[in-house]
């Protein structure tokens, strides 16, 4: 790492982390029920418990970040489970208002 220079905020944050163990501790942290603790990248929180390293705004690269099934409990997995979830929203940053939720028959 000593020959690499951190260029963006996320890389700087990683450099600031004192040790790999410390990063592990944060990664394994528990979150409020309904949030994901998968934070590489994260949906609700970044690996440091903040928002600075999230894909923001989330609409700008939603499909790249969600990567078809990266957070299947929060963003519909379009690989297997809900392939048509975003079929009418080619550009999330323009048509984000059309993105709807999956409402399981939950009454």
């Amino acid at each position, binding site marked *: 790492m000593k020959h690499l220079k951190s260029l963006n905020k996320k890389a700087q944050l990683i450099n600031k982390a004192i040790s790999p163990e410390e990063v592990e501790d944060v990664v394994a942290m528990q979150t*409020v029920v309904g949030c994901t603790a998968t934070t590489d990248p994260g949906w609700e929180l970044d690996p440091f418990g903040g928002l600075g390293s999230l894909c923001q705004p989330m609409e700008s690269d939603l499909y790249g970040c969600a990567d078809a099934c990266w957070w299947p409990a929060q963003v519909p997995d379009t690989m297997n489970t809900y392939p048509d979830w975003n079929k009418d929203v080619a550009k999330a940053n323009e048509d984000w208002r059309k*993105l*709807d*939720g999956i409402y399981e028959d939950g009454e």
Partner: protein
Amino acid sequence: MALNNNRLKRVLMGTGALALAGLLSPAALATDAQEIIRDRCLACHTESSDAANSTFSRISDQRKTPEGWHMTLNRMEHLRDAKISAQEKRELIKYLSDTQGLAPEEAAPFRYLLEQDTNLVESGVDENLMQMCARCHSAARFGLQRRTLDEWQMLVDFHMAQFPGIELHAGSRDRPWYQLAHNETSAQLSEQYPLDTPEWNNWSKAKKVDLKGRWRVTGYVPGKGEFSAWMTAATDDDGRYNLKLEGNYADGAVIEGSGKATVYTGYEWRGTLTIDSVKMRQVMAADKDGQVMAGRMFLAMEDEIGGELRAVKDTGKAQVVAVMPSYLKAGESAELVIVGQNLDGDIDLGDGVRIDEVIARSKDRIVVTATATGTPAVNDVQVGSADSTVALAVFDQVARVDVTPTNAVTRIGGNGGEMEKVRATYRAIGYSAGADGEAGTDDDVRLGYMPASWSIEPVDEVAEHDKDHLYAGEITPAGMFIPGDAGPNPERKMSANNVGRLNVVATVDDGDSKVEGRGSMLVSVPDFVERVLD
């Protein structure tokens, strides 16, 4: 205050399955339900039978809550193309959770998820299960299931096939995740949550108490306040309970509603009522004697918005069930409402509490003005010879204020988009310092919910720099947090969403002093996947 958040889709798409399931006689239900399984499920599952009973492959090797079976059936419809009518689905949920449910002790640690009370950080989760399973969804989701080893392994396999990205996350890609999950985590789960347990063995054989009758109910509705009411549960022709609820909020305003309820597994109460024109749901667990039920009531369209609910059956016995508020400041007077049933005789609020006036009195509700003339104490609330475990805390000073929920997530929404805002409601709980005179120690005395004024602040320097407190939302005087609008915000750096990390601050007035408490709030992006259980 408008309680509705207009999350209409959930209601329109929902069938009310859990509250609407009929209560046929157990034998008829079992025969019918097994026939439904034969008709609808045996294209994939197989039946084995001996003289005593039938078993069905996979199905018979699992136990779940009503909500858990509901999710299973949803998945079978969505992913396996099962064709099941709404009525058949209700019958199956009822039958499966009655015959392959969870014992009260088994569900007890995870009731928050059943009650949809999810603004909390789960505690006591095994580190390995946290990393392997609960990093995507709650630990309660699997904690509310019981399976054989084979079934836990097949659940792992399902995850691997359905969500292949699971191997690539941090915490997975640095180790052979699938092998560990299939071999070791499944074994751990089958030891921790096995199919056969003494608890279920006992509960499945226990005689179940019919929960019909008249219940003295106390609870809290956000924006309206604490209430006490009578709820009657009468058996309908279809076997469900018809519910009627009538009572008063603490300020005297009427609370009134009616609806239906179904009881699963002999103790899992699921009700749907329209109260003051708003559809609400009740999730409660009955105790083994069927005398007391406890849980939560919340908006059907917005399950984050709700409050605790408790029901005590009217058996003709005199009982005190609540006092509102549950505290009185030394040297001061206040109006107190004593709630109970069959109350008769002298009112006694303990040494050092003088009753100045009985403003109103009936068998189930007594309104008094009382003055605390003595020193701080926790007094029993007595009316005649009534049973009572209710206490009135006399205090001299509010030493500490806790904010509930301590940790919460809300989500941006609205702004013309499909996703509604996910809000949160807050309450402040006051404590006195207790005998050691020091706040924050084990002997602090819980006084109860207290009126508070509410504000938000950025959680740290980064949040302040990003002006989270200006963009992420606002809190109403009643403690309802309303997150910001969805969509990129050009005013923010990189057009970030109106997300933020905030503290929610409650300020309680205690005489001339003010006491603050804080809760942590994450204002996040939408959750696009809403399961029966998260």
